[in-house]
């Protein structure tokens, strides 16, 4: 690889990325098509969820993937997004499009507070504090029955219109999820080639060493954490409008938080396309298994768990870096990292 000094302005970076990872770009762009090619609502449902979770996992990746500091509490932001837009819609008649932005603002604020307190914590303590944060949010949603309906959940009345972000066809939802995924993906691609992204990775790798280079590491990490939370929150609002129902535990429980991570790790955390690939593999698999393995309850989770364990044991960096290494070897260059 020649180290050119070409200006990495946004458009140049984009061109560069398309050239380097054409297959992943094709996969991401073409993933809009299948929901429009099938008439089956069952498959359209799986496709929409795949795209939504690809976006959510990208949003998680933006902070945790690039800093390598794993948040197991992102479901809290999913919940904040879902409840904020829904409550604004149900109680005040605010369009979910605006509610989505309001939710992002609330999530950003929450991330600012919680990140300010916990990001200075090292390793395992940060991870535990993110779990605790999500648990607190979940319990808060369960207990404030008057507002959230508690564990009974909240239902949004089916009243399809663009302004209400409620659609009659699943393919419209899929298109919305695709847009959301592209937004998260493009932000990650930008980050990968930006000063902020490089400083974020350095700060996550060794905070003290980074600070000695003039990097205000905790500020860089906090900024990325806040952005990641705001993006996740947007996905939460879409999630609510898609299901038209929400309930604290399925939204903010640990297994929801873990899903963000599993998709990213499977595809390759810290790579922009990793979570997209991860979701394309795992979300359909998980849904098909859930549909197919109904005889024994929990069996689909067991099979999925085994598959994930296999990935973690044999390809701990995720699948995308493996594919890249394979492609690089075929092109006769190896051992390098394309940014």
């Amino acid at each position: 690889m020649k180290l050119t000094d070409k200006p990495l302005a946004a458009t140049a970076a984009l061109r560069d990325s398309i050239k380097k990872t054409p297959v992943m770009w094709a996969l991401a762009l073409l993933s809009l098509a299948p929901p429009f090619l099938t008439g089956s609502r069952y498959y359209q449902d799986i496709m929409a969820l795949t795209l939504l979770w690809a976006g959510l996992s990208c949003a998680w990746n933006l902070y945790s993937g690039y800093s390598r500091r794993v948040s197991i509490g992102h479901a809290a932001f999913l919940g904040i997004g879902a409840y904020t837009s829904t409550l604004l819609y149900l109680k005040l008649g605010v369009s979910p499009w605006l509610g989505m932005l309001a939710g992002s603002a609330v999530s950003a604020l929450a991330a600012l507070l919680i990140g300010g307190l916990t990001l200075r914590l090292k390793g395992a303590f940060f991870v535990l504090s993110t779990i605790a944060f999500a648990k607190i949010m979940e319990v808060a949603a369960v207990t404030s029955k008057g507002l959230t309906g508690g564990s009974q959940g909240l239902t949004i009345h089916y009243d399809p219109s663009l302004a209400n972000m409620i659609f009659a066809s699943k393919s419209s939802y899929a298109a919305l999820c695709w847009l959301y995924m592209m937004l998260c993906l493009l932000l990650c691609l930008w980050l990968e080639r930006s000063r902020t992204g490089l400083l974020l990775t350095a700060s996550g790798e060794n905070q003290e060493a980074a600070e000695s280079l003039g990097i205000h590491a905790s500020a860089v990490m906090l900024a990325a954490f806040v952005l990641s939370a705001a993006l996740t929150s947007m996905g939460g609002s879409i999630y609510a409008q898609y299901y038209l129902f929400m309930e604290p535990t399925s939204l903010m429980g640990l297994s929801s938080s873990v899903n963000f991570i599993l998709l990213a790790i499977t595809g390759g955390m810290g790579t922009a396309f990793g979570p997209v690939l991860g979701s394309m593999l795992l979300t359909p698999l998980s849904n098909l298994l859930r549909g197919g393995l109904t005889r024994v309850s929990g069996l689909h989770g067991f099979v999925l768990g085994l598959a994930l364990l296999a990935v973690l044991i044999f390809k701990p960096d995720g699948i995308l870096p493996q594919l890249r290494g394979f492609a690089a070897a075929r092109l006769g260059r190896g051992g390098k990292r394309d940014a």
Partner: protein
Amino acid sequence: MLEIINLTKRFGGLEALSGLNATVEEGELLGLIGPNGSGKTTLFNCVSGVLPPTEGRIRFMGEDVTGRKPWETARRGIARSYQIVRPFANMTVLENVMAGAFCRESRYSEAQKAAEGILETLGLSEKAPLLAKSLNLGERKKLEIGKALATKPRLLLLDEVMAGLNPSEVAEMAEIVRGLNRGGITVVMIEHIMEAITSLCERLIALNFGKLIKEGPTRQVIRDPSVAEAYFGKGN
């Protein structure tokens, strides 16, 4: 350029630095010696802001920088290397140096150019696209300097950059350090390798138990009985 005034650093009951007074002149290449545990690294930690001193003041370029955070001292022109090297292992060698270059340059392409220039002077250009974790110790020590250099320091604090290197690597490192100093960077180096110190430094400061025991021209300091005693114990 750097004034250390009555500096004390305590870790619980242990006094790692006690009432230390010292100055570093602009443009010099100063050696800092002393036996293990004498407080050399602690002094670097206080000056660079990694640890706040318990008492005393630190002035840099006429400005009080006592207790400033490390990123603030770095932006003011104090850079350091770590005794135990701290590469960003999963980033490329080029990206490692760019992380330092962003201290002065916010444009990506300019930071990249600056980093490439530094790798060139350190003889690490070949390694630029490799992950830092693939480097050997000698290369890691060079990378440690490269990252610090990229912040365009006025004062460079080098903590045992030659330890663990083979003789030819030591000689190469000595050339690098001399070159940097000639290029106008004030250098303070902690080192145990005497040949390197005597060939590079004109002036030395010797510490023992956190106190300055001797300072002056290199030859004088290393021949001083109190310094020998600190290193080898009381002669018998």
